[in-house]
Each structure stands twice: as C-alpha cells, then as structure tokens.
C-alpha cells in the first residue's frame, strides 16, 4: 500500500474532537408505500424500511451498522446523506437539521459527507476516465478550479489511495476490482468530506482483495481524521473495523454497543443468534463423530 507522506489537504473540518457527535439521528422513519392500481392509485400499506431509529455518529469514530438483507441498513445510509427523503424524524449533521434542506444548502452538506458503494463495477461510469470520475466531485462543488489544478489534485488523491497516477486517463474496465474500489474511495475523498459512509465496500471483492480496501479505509480514517460509517452484513469485517456497532433488524436498532462489549457479551438475543450463525463459530457443534 503506497501512500505518500505528502498528504493532500485533510478534511476541511479537521478539528477532530473525539466524542462529539458529528451526526445525530433521531426517530428516523422511512416508509415505502405499497400501492395498487394505475388510474386510481390507492395505498394498501407501507414497507417500514426504517422504523424509528436513533443514534449518534461521534467525530473520528468508525460506526458499524450490521444487519441481514432487508433489515434497513442501506435505507438508513441513504437517509443519512439525503439520497432518500425521510418520512419523519431528524438527521442533524454538524449541528444542522438536514432532513428538509434543498438546493444549494443541501449541496453544501453533501460535499461534507460522501459515499463509497458496494459494487465497484456498476458504480463507476464506464465511459469516463478514472481521472474524470475522481475529479467529478471537484467540478460539482467548484473545488480545485481549472483543468491543471484539478489534474494535480486527482493525481494526489490517486497516490493517496495507492493508485498509480499514470492511470489517470485509463477507463474503469481496465482496472481490477480492488483498484476500482480504490477509485471509489478516491472519489469519495475528493471534496475533503468529514464523514464517509461506506455501504458494503468489500462484499463484491475477492477474498484476497478485501483486506486491501479495508486497510485503506482504516488508514484514510486515521490519516485524514475522517469519521466513518461502515454498513456491512459481515460481522467479522465490522468487528475488525469499528469502534461501535449498531445491529439492525426490521428497521430498528436492536443493540448499539462498543465493539468489545457487543462481541464478547452481546445483550440482545438477535445479536447472539447472528454471532452464533457465523461459520466457524459453529464448528464445535457440527463436529459430530460420523
């Protein structure tokens, strides 16, 4: 992992005072309506994807959100960065309620929180070069104005995440899965965010490559003073990466605890069930003499 010592600008709000909430989520609800009929649409009910979730994201921490498919973990992430509009509840980011923001104010907030997606194959535009993909947030937010300045900043970012800046004019399909995910991380870091939300950042990668990306995320967090929210279904990954962990099921948080506490002494039966289901944990049970 070749990260140069000459770090580009850290996040603009690098005044890291651990323990202060960077984001406060209160009673967050997202219901997706189930409708029938085309002309006379009527609502039959609602999928309660997120159903009254409250938690803080502390400055400088890595918060893990684990759950099975359909638990509402991805919806929660999308509500946090306003890719979805909440049905009710509040998300405060850096002291400001962002649930009703629009236009320029929302754009300003989005610059400060960025997303890393699961699938590095479908989340990068195949017709744009790596340089253009990483530089896009800079254009959108009017940072590093001018072609030369932007190329320089993009090169810095590529070096930061362990990519060869000579690949700036390559296309995503020319890169391996791990390299593509590095592009995804570089793009997220481009506008110098305070918060990065990574939704299943390694689950689409090969086993031997996952560690490269996990190590990169951990390193970026400590080097740039980032706050990281890691959404995953893999309990081992979350254990390795996170300071605190929220376990979600059915749109609700069933347990939120420090890493050590959650894995050594889980309180909620569902957490215990999840931990017991991990292959390897069950080996003693299975080894029945044949």
């Amino acid at each position, binding site marked *: 992992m070749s990260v140069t010592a000459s770090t580009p600008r850290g996040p603009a709000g690098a005044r890291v005072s651990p323990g202060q909430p960077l984001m406060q989520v209160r009673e967050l609800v997202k219901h997706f309506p189930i409708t029938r009929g085309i002309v006379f649409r009527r609502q039959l009910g609602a999928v309660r994807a997120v159903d009254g979730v409250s938690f803080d994201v502390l400055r400088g921490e890595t918060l893990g959100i684990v759950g099975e498919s359909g638990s509402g973990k991805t919806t929660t992430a999308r509500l946090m960065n306003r890719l979805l509009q909440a049905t009710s509840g509040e998300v405060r980011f850096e002291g400001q309620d962002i649930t009703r923001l629009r236009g320029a104010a929302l754009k300003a907030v989005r610059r400060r929180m960025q997303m890393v997606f699961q699938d590095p194959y479908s989340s990068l535009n195949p017709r744009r070069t790596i340089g253009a993909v990483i530089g896009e947030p800079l254009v959108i937010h009017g940072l590093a104005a001018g072609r030369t300045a932007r190329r320089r900043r993009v090169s810095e970012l590529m070096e930061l995440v362990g990519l060869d800046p000579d690949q700036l004019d390559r296309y995503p399909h020319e890169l391996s899965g791990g390299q593509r995910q590095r592009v995804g991380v570089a793009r997220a870091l481009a506008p110098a965010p305070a918060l990065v939300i990574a939704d299943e950042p390694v689950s689409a990668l090969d*086993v*031997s490559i996952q560690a490269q990306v996990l190590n990169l995320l951990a390193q970026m967090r400590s080097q740039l003073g980032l706050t990281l929210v890691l959404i995953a279904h893999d309990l081992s990954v979350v254990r390795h990466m996170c300071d605190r962990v929220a376990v979600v099921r059915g749109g609700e948080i069933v347990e939120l605890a420090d890493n050590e506490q959650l894995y050594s002494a889980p309180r909620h039966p569902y957490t215990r069930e999840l931990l017991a289901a991990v292959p*390897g944990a069950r080996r003693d049970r299975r080894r029945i003499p*044949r």
Partner: protein
Amino acid sequence: MSAAGEPSAASTAPEPALAPATPGPPLLRVEDLCVQFPTERGLVHAVDGVSFSLERGRTLGIVGESGSGKTACSLTLIGLTRHMGARVSGRVLLDGRELLGLSERDMRRVRGAEIAMIFQDPLSSMHPLFTVGRQIVEALRAHRDIGRRAARERAVELLELVGIAQARRRVDAYPHELSGGMRQRAMIAMALSNDPKLLIADEPTSALDVTVQAQILDLLARLQRELSMAIVLVTHDLGVVAEMADHVAVFYAGRIVERAPAQELFSHPEHPYTWGLLQSIPTLFGPRERELRPIAGSPPSLIERPSGCHFHPRCPYAQPRHAEVDPWLEPLPGDRDHQVACLLAPQLRRQLSSQPAGGRAAAGAIVSGAGREAGA
C-alpha cells in the same frame, strides 16, 4: 514437462486416496483434469491438471477466488462444460466408471441421478413459470419409471425432508413465492430427488443471510449423514469450509496448490497463498487488533498465466528461479495426506509459517476451536 505454462505440468503423480478410512475404491476419482475454453482473446486454462479423490459420505471443500477454476472444475464433473465449447482432458471416475467419455445420452442418465448439483442462486436456476412441485416431479420422472401421482407424493416427502413446513401446500408454489432460504431448500430437494451418491454444491449459501446460511449448512450436514452422500463443496468462504469439509483443496489459477484434511489445513497451512488467504480475512475470534495482510496484486488472468509457479508474482517469498520452475503438488515429508505445490524448501516454509507474519498465527482465528489451541 517442466516447460512453463504447459498444461498438466502439475501433479500427474499417482493419486493416494484422500481418506483411506473405508476400504475399496473411492467414489469419485479425478485424474489430471484439464479444462480449456477457446476465446477470442486466447485459450483460457480454466482447470489445469487437477487430481483428487473423494470417499463416500465425505465432504471435499474446494476453495478459491473468482477465476481460480473451481466452478469450471465442478461443472466439468457433472458434464456441463461440454456445451460451452470446452476442451476437456483427463479422467473423471465415478464408482470406477469413466464419465468424460460418455455420450451425452449416457451422461444425462448420470446427471441428476448419480451426481446432482445445487447452485448459488436458486432463483435463476429454477424455472420461474413452473411450480416447485412440477420441477421436482420432472426430475423424478426423468430418471425412473414412476407415475405422476406417486412422483408428486415423493416431491412432498422431499420438501418435508429438507425442512419446508406445510410441504403439501408449498409443493404448488412458484419459485418467486418462496424466500431465498426456502428456495435453496427446494433446490436441495430437487437435487436429492434421485438419491445421488455425489452432490456438488457450488457456493450454496453465498447469496443467503448468515442465519439462513447456518440453517442450510445444518441441513446439508444432516442429509449427508442420513443419506451418506459425498459432497463437493465449492466456496470462497473459509469459514464454511472449516465447518463443513473433511478435506480441503485450495485452488489458484486453475490448479490445486494445497490439499489437506481440513483440521490440518487450518492448523498447519503450508502454501504462501493459503497463508495469505488466512491472514487477509478478519475473523470473529482471536485478537481484534491483528493486522490484515492483504495479498499483493490481483488473481492472474487464465489466458496469460505467470510463468513458473503461478503465484510467484504475488508471493512475498518468491525467488528468481520460481519464475521458471513449475511446482508439483507433492506430499509433505511424513504426511501423505497433506500436499503442497510450493518451491520453497520445507524447512524454510516451516520457519516462515511459525513467524508472526506466517500462516500459523492467523490460521487459528478462523475457527473458534483452533483459536483456543493457538492460544490467541
């Protein structure tokens, strides 16, 4: 034979049976299997000189990353690469009967009856327009002389066997009406319909949630005990292998680079690639602060494979001559069951693996039992 990249250079040595627990010939014996796919960009060496054998009632875990040849190998066992334009050589013997030379008609009798397969994604491997029951009935009637009504009764029994509640009602359900775990159970029921001797399970739980995965693995283990089937379990998940497999074969670039009884593999891994795999995954056991050590680089292209030892470009211990010499899969001194294809001297490997950065330190953390042994 030592020419780099020459197919079948690895492991043409005669095969010791994996687990000489039961007398007699093994159920499945694969000898020097090669599978190649001609493509526009060149010849893909998907499987390159793979040999192994499997006893009745035992489970062989095949571990590898995408593009390691594990799926091409398992599809070839059941004769499904024939239609893909594959060039296949070597031998696949089921109960002493050679399968590769069979006509398509004869192979169709074997497939589904003696060897069955379950796939990763049950939704795309079942017909969406037919009920689950009808598909099981079809599988039954394809292989035996059985009336519709009797076949339907058997379908209900099979669904009950795999733990589907209200089987009599669910037999008329369409695949999309079942949850992911239920669909996987239904597919297992379909695979079991003709009492196969060998079940090939290709990533059977990778698309499932962890709690559902646990149920399906329990189910497979129970059925294996009750029906004394042999299972070839193809997966990238070392945890699943640690739990299910009696023996493990580690695939890299179309070859087996290490093979051992499961417990031996996790307690004394010998190949640097196996070490890399074990060190690069976070685990639920052992110290949390343990640093993840990724394997440098990416898996190689199977069209232009690296010369010599295919792992040498990613191997931290590679020496210049490893780019020229092709290693064979050879037993460890004093342990016929544990085989490794590595050019490092055994003493040096032992030394490396006992270092903190070596394989043994990390290996203990994969499974809870071994973690305690290793004193982690």
